[in-house]
């Protein structure tokens, strides 16, 4: 059975709307595109805040000794930076991208449960504000790392309202993002257009489907863990003794590892769409990719114990085996991406540059992941800057570049205006140089024994730290250029048209931006690239007016 999205009744209306009413209408709108835009704006706000904290940290670390902040403030900085980026920026941004695009890609008029998505956004926003409001309390914001490890985070070691707000905020934000993911999953399963079978889903929608599986399986566990942590802080007796600490770690990392892939898969999907479009080719190995995605997501649920190798309380053999097995589906995905480019007429537009940046830089994050998946090697680098470098190569140099590939690619669809190529390329090079300047030295710092989460270090490590801090400044400049690009492109609009790239999937068959119910008419769907099919039938390589 192919989805069979039911037709949509037009909303009642017709009278003029006052500005105040319009604002309420926007904030309470159930249109998936508006909800996704709200998620996007909120996540950008939290990205700005969390990024600012990172700049403060790098300023402190530019030289050995304490110059700018106290130990306690530094604890708040890295804890709120990490938790802000993971709970409030990358995860919601990934799901927000899916919320906007999946209904368009599967040919649906709306998401399956628009109210659920709207409620999810508000819960996420309230959770984020609660987490950050800790800075306004006497006890300060959360300062027990983004994992809130027990016993650091109990009421003895971290008393005060600030940490409570962190725990409640994380719970609320996670519940919100869970609801958004559920909406996306239901849309794919139940609202596909006639002809859109599961094996005709675009690659991005498949990655979103895989992502929602992990969200559905792991996010409830974190919500329960946060509830128990709050109970521990107020009532005690929940996570007591050594077993309590291990139990908490199991619960946290059961969420904590899959969430890395929640922040990864949607961007693999975005990069896959970009690579296919800008190589002017059909995506290579579609079925292999689908299978590898399902295996990858399943395996990624089974590797959480590698974060606990040094506790000696998990079966290292099992978790090392499953962690290494991840290389197989990851290799298939890389093979598919590279093979799509081989023989293609590659166009190095900004989205493609970011996609290539993602492919190259995530590889460094992935390969260093093999090191931390091996218990003997992990014993050496655990708790060091090597780990910081590894996960920043996956999440910043990887996922963030994938996000920007997607943003540059779909911006014309969402706004009807093109981003400026010159500014886009400038921001790419600044971000690429900045990311490598910041994070590559950290591998050496970690191997040399520099501990993470400590504001001071041995003077011999000063040069590499200074280099990393300069790199952070370059990243900030790159981000500013990106925002300037968005500002200029929206103020002085260059109209995009429906399909400026000569793309392949269904969202490009509607107007830019799409109407309230997405489509006025749907083209026939005979594969996962219906627009490419249509062009091939007409004997054209790219639509008229597409960027050459």
């Amino acid at each position, binding site marked *: 059975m192919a989805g069979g999205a039911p037709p949509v009744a037009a909303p009642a209306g017709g009278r003029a709307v006052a500005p105040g009413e319009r604002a309420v209408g926007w904030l309470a709108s159930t249109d998936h595109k508006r909800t996704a835009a709200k998620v996007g704006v909120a996540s950008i706000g939290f990205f700005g805040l969390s990024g600012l904290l990172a700049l403060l940290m790098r300023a402190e670390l530019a030289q050995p000794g304490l110059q700018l902040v106290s130990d306690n403030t530094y604890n708040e900085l890295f804890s709120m930076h990490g938790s802000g980026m993971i709970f409030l920026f990358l995860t919601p941004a990934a799901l927000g991208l899916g919320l906007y695009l999946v209904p368009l890609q599967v040919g649906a008029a709306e998401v399956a449960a628009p*109210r659920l998505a709207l409620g999810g956004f508000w819960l996420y926003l309230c959770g984020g504000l609660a987490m950050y409001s800790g800075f306004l309390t006497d006890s300060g914001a959360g300062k027990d790392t983004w994992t809130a490890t027990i016993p650091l985070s109990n009421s003895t070691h971290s008393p005060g*309202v600030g940490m409570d707000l962190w725990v409640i905020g994380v719970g609320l934000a996670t519940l919100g993002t869970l609801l958004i993911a559920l909406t996306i999953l239901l849309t794919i399963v139940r609202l596909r257009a006639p002809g859109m079978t599961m094996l005709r889903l675009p690659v991005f929608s498949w990655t979103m489907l895989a992502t929602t599986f992990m969200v559905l399986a792991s996010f409830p566990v974190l919500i329960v863990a946060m509830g128990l942590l709050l109970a521990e802080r107020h009532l005690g007796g929940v996570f007591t003794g050594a077993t309590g600490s291990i139990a908490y770690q199991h619960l946290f990392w059961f969420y904590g590892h899959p969430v890395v892939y929640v922040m990864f898969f949607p961007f693999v999907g975005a990069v896959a769409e970009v690579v296919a479009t800008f190589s002017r080719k059909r995506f290579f190995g579609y079925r292999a990719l689908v299978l590898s995605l399902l295996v990858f997501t399943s395996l990624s649920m089974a590797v959480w114990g590698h974060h606990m190798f040094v506790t000696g309380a998990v079966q290292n053999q099992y978790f090392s085996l499953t962690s290494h097995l991840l290389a197989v589906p990851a290799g298939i995905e890389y093979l598919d991406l590279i093979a799509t480019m081989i023989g293609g007429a590659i166009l190095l537009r900004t989205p493609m540059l970011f996609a290539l940046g993602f492919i190259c830089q995530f590889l460094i994050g992935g390969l260093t992941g093999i090191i931390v998946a091996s218990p003997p090697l992990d014993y050496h680098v655990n708790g060091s800057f090597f780990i910081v470098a590894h996960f920043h190569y996956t999440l910043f140099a990887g996922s963030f570049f994938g996000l920007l590939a997607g943003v540059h690619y779909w911006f014309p669809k969402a706004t009807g205006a093109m981003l400026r190529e010159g500014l886009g390329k400038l921001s790419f090079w600044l971000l690429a140089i900045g990311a490598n300047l910041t994070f590559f030295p950290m591998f050496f710092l970690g191997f040399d024994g520099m501990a993470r989460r400590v504001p001071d270090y041995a003077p011999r490590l000063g040069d590499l730290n200074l280099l990393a801090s300069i790199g952070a400044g370059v990243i900030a400049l790159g981000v500013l250029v990106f925002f300037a690009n968005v500002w200029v492109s929206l103020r002085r609009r260059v109209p995009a048209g429906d399909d400026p790239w000569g793309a392949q999937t269904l969202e490009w068959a509607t107007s830019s931006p799409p109407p309230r119910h997405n489509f006025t008419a749907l083209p026939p769907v005979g594969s996962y690239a219906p627009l490419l099919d249509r062009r091939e039938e007409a004997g054209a390589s790219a639509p008229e007016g597409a960027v050459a």
Partner: protein
Amino acid sequence: MSRPWAPLLFWGCLQLILGAGLAAFDEVVPALLFLASAAPVLVLAAWNLVRPPRERPRRLPGLSVPVVLIAIGLAAAAIGLTAGLWLSLVGAEIFLFGAVWLGRELYEERRWAR
């Protein structure tokens, strides 16, 4: 493959296999956690099999203020656990108000659909 429940079932089965593998390594409690995590996806697959999507028109809301109230009420009630009972009570009130409003909204929607 046109059956939407197939990837859900496939993924759920992979989870069960990996969970069984974990149990074989004497990690019984984590294995139970792992096996339980497959449940939501399997339940969804079963639900989709039993209740396929409706083919008739859906009345979609343009906006839904009560949902916003429910979410803000829930958040306020939760934050009240540390900020004070007063905030929990205010949050619970907003939640209740939103829930009643939502009930009415859904009732109107169903009436229109009939």
